[in-house]
C-alpha cells in the first residue's frame, strides 16, 4: 500500500481505509480524501496527556478515502519500514506516516534522547504494517547482533527496531576539558539483535562539539 515515488515522495493507495500521517505532509491526492487532525498523536486521552507531559509532541492527521495520496516533508529522503509485530523506535519528527495496523506510543529513552536534543522520550510504532520515516539523505540500515555491537553518533541516529539495549558512551577525559576534545565524545552503543537506521548527516546536538 505504501510506495515510494522517487525517493522523496510517499504514495499511498487507499481503498476506504485510514492512514496516520504527519500533519501537513500531504502534497497531492487524487480520488476522494478526508483529512482529520488528531490531537495527541491519535492515541486517545491517555496518549494526549503523555505526549503533553513528555514533550514528545506529534502533530498527526488521519487521512481516509479512496485513491492515491502523496506525502512529502521538506524534500527529505523517505524510508519504508515493514513491521511484523516488532517495535520501531523513531523520533516523532522523523515519522512521516503509518499504516492503520500500527499503533504509536511514547517511551522513555533516557540520556540518548537528551544528547540528541530531542528530549528524554521517543515515539514507538508497533503492530503489523508499514511505516515511513524521513531522514536527511538516504538512511543506512545497520545490523546489530550478538558480538557485533554498533556505535552511532547521536546526531546521525534516526530509528531502530528489534531487541536492542542502548548505552550512552562517553569518551570525555581531561583532554576534553583542555579543549582537545575529539568531537566524537558521545556515542550510543547498541547491543542485542536488531537494525539501526542512521542518516548520512548530523543534527546539531548538545554534545556535538565535545
Amino acid at each position, binding site marked *: 500500500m505504501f510506495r515510494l515515488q522517487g525517493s522523496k515522495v510517499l504514495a499511498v493507495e487507499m481503498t476506504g481505509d485510514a492512514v496516520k500521517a504527519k500533519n501537513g505532509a500531504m502534497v497531492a491526492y487524487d480520488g476522494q480524501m478526508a483529512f482529520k487532525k488528531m490531537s495527541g498523536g491519535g492515541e486517545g486521552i491517555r496518549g494526549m496527556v503523555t505526549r503533553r507531559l513528555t514533550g514528545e509532541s506529534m502533530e498527526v492527521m488521519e487521512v481516509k478515502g479512496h485513491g492515491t495520496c502523496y506525502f512529502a516533508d521538506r524534500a527529505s529522503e523517505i524510508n519504508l519500514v515493514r513491521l511484523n509485530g516488532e517495535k520501531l523506535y523513531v523520533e516523532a519528527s522523523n515519522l512521516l506516516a503509518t499504516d492503520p495496523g500500527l499503533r504509536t506510543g511514547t517511551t522513555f529513552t533516557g540520556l540518548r534522547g537528551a544528547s540528541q536534543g530531542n528530549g528524554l522520550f521517543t515515539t514507538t510504532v508497533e503492530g503489523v504494517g508499514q511505516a515511513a520515516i524521513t531522514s536527511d539523505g538516504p538512511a543506512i540500515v545497520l545490523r546489530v547482533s550478538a558480538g557485533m555491537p554498533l556505535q552511532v553518533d547521536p*546526531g546521525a541516529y534516526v530509528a531502530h527496531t528489534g531487541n536492542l539495549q542502548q548505552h550512552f558512551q562517553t569518551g570525555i577525559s581531561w583532554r576534553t576539558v583542555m579543549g582537545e576534545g575529539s568531537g566524537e565524545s558521545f556515542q550510543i552503543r547498541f547491543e542485542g539483535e536488531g537494525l539501526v537506521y542512521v542518516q548520512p548527516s548530523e543534527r546539531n546536538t548538545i554534545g556535538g562539539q565535545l
Partner: protein
Amino acid sequence: MTAMAGGPVIHDPHTLPVDDNVNPYAFSVELKGQWFLQKGKMIAYYGQIDFHGIGHGRLDRLVATNFHSPLHAADWVVAEGQGKLLLADRAYDVNSFDLENGNLTIRSGNLLAFQPGLALKQSIIPGFLTLIGTGKFVAASNGAVHFVEPPIRVDPQALVGWADCPSPCHHYDHGYMRGVLGGLRALTGIGGTSGEEHQFEFVGAGQVLLQSTEVLMPETATGGVPASAGPGVPGAGVPGAPGGQQGQVPRLPGQLGDLQRRFGL
C-alpha cells in the same frame, strides 16, 4: 548497491564495503590502525575505535609527521583501532581519491578524512589544505565532483581543489568597468554586475576539481597564517586577513590549534 526484494539493504560489518562508498552520501573505512578525521563526520562504527583529539600526547609522533596545520588542529581527530567506520557530511556527495606520490590542494571544509600515508599541510592559499604523499582521502562536495584540465578559469565558489598543477591566480574581467557607465557601475554598484567578473585561473598540467553548485559548505574560517609568521609569508600580519581571526579577539598564544578555537571562541 543492490536492493533486495521487499526491503532496504541491510549492512553489517562484513558486508560494508572496504574503503569504499556505501551510497553516494556515506563512505565506509576499514580501519586497521589510524586515520585522520574531521570532527563530527563519523556517523557510526563497528569494532573497537578510539578518537583522540590532536594535541600533545601519545600520538605526538604521528601528528608531527603528518599534520602541519596548527590552525586546523582543533577541527581534526585521529581515529585509532580496528573496525568499520562510516563517514558522512550533511548528506553531501562523498568521494574517495587515491594519491600516489602526489599532491592535492582542497578547500579545508571539504576534506573529511585521510590516511596517515598523506601529510596535511596548510596551503598558502587561505582556506585550502594541501595533501602530499601516498594514500587515500575522502572529500565531500555539494553535488558530484567534476574533473577538468587546465588551462581553465573557474568560479571561486565552485572550486573544490586541484592536483599537480600550480596554484591558481586571480583573474578579473575589467571589460564591465570600461567607459563612463562602466565606471559609474564600478563606483556605485548601480546597474549590477553579473557576479562572474572574478575567476580563478589555472595553467599548467594537472587536474582541477569542481563541484556542481556555487553554494559553499559552511566552514569555520581557517587557513590564515599565524600572526607570528615573519615578513615574506603571504598573509602574515595583515589585519582581517582571510581567516579573519586576527583583529577581533586577541589570540592567546597556543600550541597546536590555538586555545580559543578549542573552546569555540
